[in-house]
């Protein structure tokens, strides 16, 4: 099994990288979401390689299944407008110079960040193969979850609850506005 591992690793990480590149580079968000699903699956394969089976399953079920589906719904809701119209509004000459530098910066920064990470990881001395006998089975995770990490577990449920409240109030605000004409007249 272990002689096949490098091949699987390179394959899946390549797929993941390409998928995310497509997400970032394409024009239409729908393709973005699909590319992201592909990346998610590749990542869960990597998790399997790392013997984190439970996390891999959750990744596929929740992340790919629920969140990305949510994305699709929203894109459908927004319709054509979602296509990026990238005409540039006129800027004053002085501002242009400033924004130009910011744009260049936006490209340079991730690259700079990436190179630093590479230097750091290469510099790390004891980067040998781990003992690799850790297996992320359901009962191991379940046991850890409900003993050592009980408090964070409860807190996460709290955060999810807050998320729900947030969405309800946001959407609530939106309907109420349309009923009584809203601050700046009926919404279009």
């Amino acid at each position, binding site marked *: 099994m272990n002689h096949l591992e490098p091949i699987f690793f390179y394959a899946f990480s390549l797929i993941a990288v390409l998928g995310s*590149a497509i997400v*970032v580079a394409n024009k239409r968000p729908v393709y973005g979401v699909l590319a992201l699903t592909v990346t998610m699956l590749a990542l869960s394969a990597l998790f399997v390689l790392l013997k984190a089976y439970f996390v891999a399953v959750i990744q596929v079920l929740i992340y790919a299944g629920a969140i990305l589906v949510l994305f699709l719904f929203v894109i459908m809701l927004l319709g054509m407008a979602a296509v990026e119209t990238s005409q540039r509004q006129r800027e004053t000459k002085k501002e242009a110079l400033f924004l130009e530098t910011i744009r260049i910066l936006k490209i340079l920064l991730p690259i700079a960040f990436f190179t630093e990470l590479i230097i750091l990881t290469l510099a790390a001395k004891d980067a040998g193969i781990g003992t690799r006998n850790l297996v992320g089975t359901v009962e191991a995770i379940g046991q850890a979850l409900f003993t050592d990490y009980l408090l964070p577990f409860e807190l996460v449920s709290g955060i999810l609850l807050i998320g729900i409240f947030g969405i309800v109030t946001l959407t609530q605000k*939106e309907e109420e506005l349309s009923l009584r004409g809203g601050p700046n007249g009926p919404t279009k």
Partner: protein
Amino acid sequence: MTLNHYLITSGILFAIGAFGVLGRRNVIIILLSIEIMLNAANLSFVAFASHLNDLGGQVISLFVIAIAASEVAIGLAIAVILFREQGTLDPEKMNLMKG
């Protein structure tokens, strides 16, 4: 495979996600790129978990997924409202906070 490999891939993914957040002019794509960055983080968590033989890394990645879920939900709700107000998804237009 060694820990470094996994860290390098998660670094690449994170960089691409960052580029997406900074460079793209569409809120949805920005949210997607944020998801990529979060996944990159997850990958490195799990890689370290297996490397350090400590389950903590995997449990944390679970939590990250949970939080990412609520974050995306709210992010999309805001995107929808912004779209209703501004009529566009381009973050450049949204400069009410201009100093």
